[in-house]
């Protein structure tokens, strides 16, 4: 029974991974330029379906309503504009779609408490780099579409390779970051430890054997920090004290064990997968605030040498650009 359940769940998970990838790959394959003028309706419809499916299956709902709404809108616009950029025939349209990608991902930066990065990226990317690309297109390709724009090289193989890469990234991320079950179990343990009467404690825990089994399975699955050993030992200890409580009904030790277990589980569910435990305040903003002053302070104290090196790289790039494009006149 256990084996059958696991293969069924594995099949469901695999379908949730493969179907949007297949749809997205098919839509990009249909939308890539092929020479003759193709109707783009099929590719666009399949692409929209892939985007909606990916939004339902790959994105975990979290946060307030307005935060989720903004995330879905900005991420959807970003990915749709990215597909538009790589499949447009006209290079000017592609550059403008890239500007839209940059603007929407700057919106995502703003959602992640990075206002200075939003402004800097908009100015540098959408303001300077896209305009420079448009200048080059204007200088080099004034006749509109060229032969190069109307063909795509190896569309099937590249789409397949990209789909495999995306699938691998998603699998690894799911294995590392899927900690919702652990968070729920931790909350349940904390509520049980805070229960006032013994019967309430029992009802909160439900089936205690299954509860502790699931907790131990989750603790084996958690990766990324050394704290999963601590979680596993605390789960064993809590189970031991539960057995002892059934014998002698001393609630204090068991409550303490459950409390410890619950706090470790909820801590790990928020921090596992990260190499170093972060310090952020309740609303998830970085410590030191999200102001430009804190970022500037960091740049001038801890990252002073990289800033100077970046400045030198800019100088070298400027000199190199002028040196490359200078017409050499042979003097006789």
């Amino acid at each position, binding site marked *: 029974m256990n084996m059958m359940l696991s293969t069924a769940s594995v099949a469901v998970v695999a379908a949730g991974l493969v179907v949007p990838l297949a749809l997205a790959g098919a839509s990009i394959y249909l939308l890539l330029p092929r*020479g003759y003028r193709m109707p783009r309706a099929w590719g666009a419809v399949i692409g929209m379906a892939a985007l909606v499916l990916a939004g339902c299956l790959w994105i*975990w709902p*979290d946060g307030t309503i307005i935060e989720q709404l903004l995330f879905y809108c900005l991420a959807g616009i970003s990915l749709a504009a990215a597909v538009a950029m790589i499949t447009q025939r006209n290079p000017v349209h592609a550059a403008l779609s890239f500007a839209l990608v940059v603007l929407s*991902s700057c919106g995502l930066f703003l959602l992640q408490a*990075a206002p200075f990065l939003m402004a800097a990226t908009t100015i540098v990317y959408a303001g300077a780099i896209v305009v*420079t690309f448009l200048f080059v297109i204007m200088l080099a390709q004034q006749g509109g579409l060229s032969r190069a724009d109307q063909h795509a090289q190896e569309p099937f193989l590249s*789409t397949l390779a990209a789909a495999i890469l995306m699938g691998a990234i998603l699998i690894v991320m799911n294995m590392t*970051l899927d900690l919702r079950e652990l968070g729920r179990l931790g909350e349940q343990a904390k509520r049980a430890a805070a229960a006032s009467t013994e019967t309430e404690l029992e009802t909160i825990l439900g089936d205690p054997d299954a509860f502790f089994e699931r907790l131990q399975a989750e603790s084996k699955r958690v990766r990324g920090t050394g704290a999963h050993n601590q979680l596993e030992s605390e789960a064993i200890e809590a189970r031991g004290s539960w057995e002892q409580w059934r014998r002698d009904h001393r609630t204090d030790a068991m409550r303490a064990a459950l409390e410890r277990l619950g706090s470790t589980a909820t801590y790990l569910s*928020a921090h596992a997968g990260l190499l170093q435990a972060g310090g952020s305040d309740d609303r998830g903003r970085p410590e030191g605030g999200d102001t430009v002053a804190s970022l500037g302070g960091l740049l001038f104290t801890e990252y002073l040498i990289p800033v100077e090196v970046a400045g030198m790289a800019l100088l070298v790039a400027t000199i190199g650009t002028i040196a490359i494009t200078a017409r050499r006149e042979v003097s006789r």
Partner: protein
Amino acid sequence: MNSTAMLHNYLVVGAALLTLGMIGFLTRRNFIIMFLSAEMMLQGVAVNLVAFARARGNLQGQAFVLFILTIAACEAAIALALVLMLYRSRHTLDIAAWQDLREPGQPATTDTEPLESPALEAPLPRLTTAGLEPLQPREESHV
């Protein structure tokens, strides 16, 4: 509040931008669109870094995104300078013009799909000659 869910969502977006940029870089033949795809890969990495900065609670990821931005600007400048030099040599932005740089034994890329044929220009209509030019008052300028 489960912060790894938010982290996961933003990492998915960053991975998607990276893979889409990879597809664009591999398939397109125009220099400009290839470089735009490379810049989009960098943008995906930037989204990842900002998400990690938010999840970890410090600003190291954001500082790194600033350095990525700087290096991307340098790269764009030098890349476009090189593109202009290549254009001066072959007068096209097509990378298939530089196919002789491929490995020996690799077949050349040829266009097998037909291009869209230019619309035939309708012949200009032949009008009968007009009559006499009407008398117009002579314009005297008082500039």
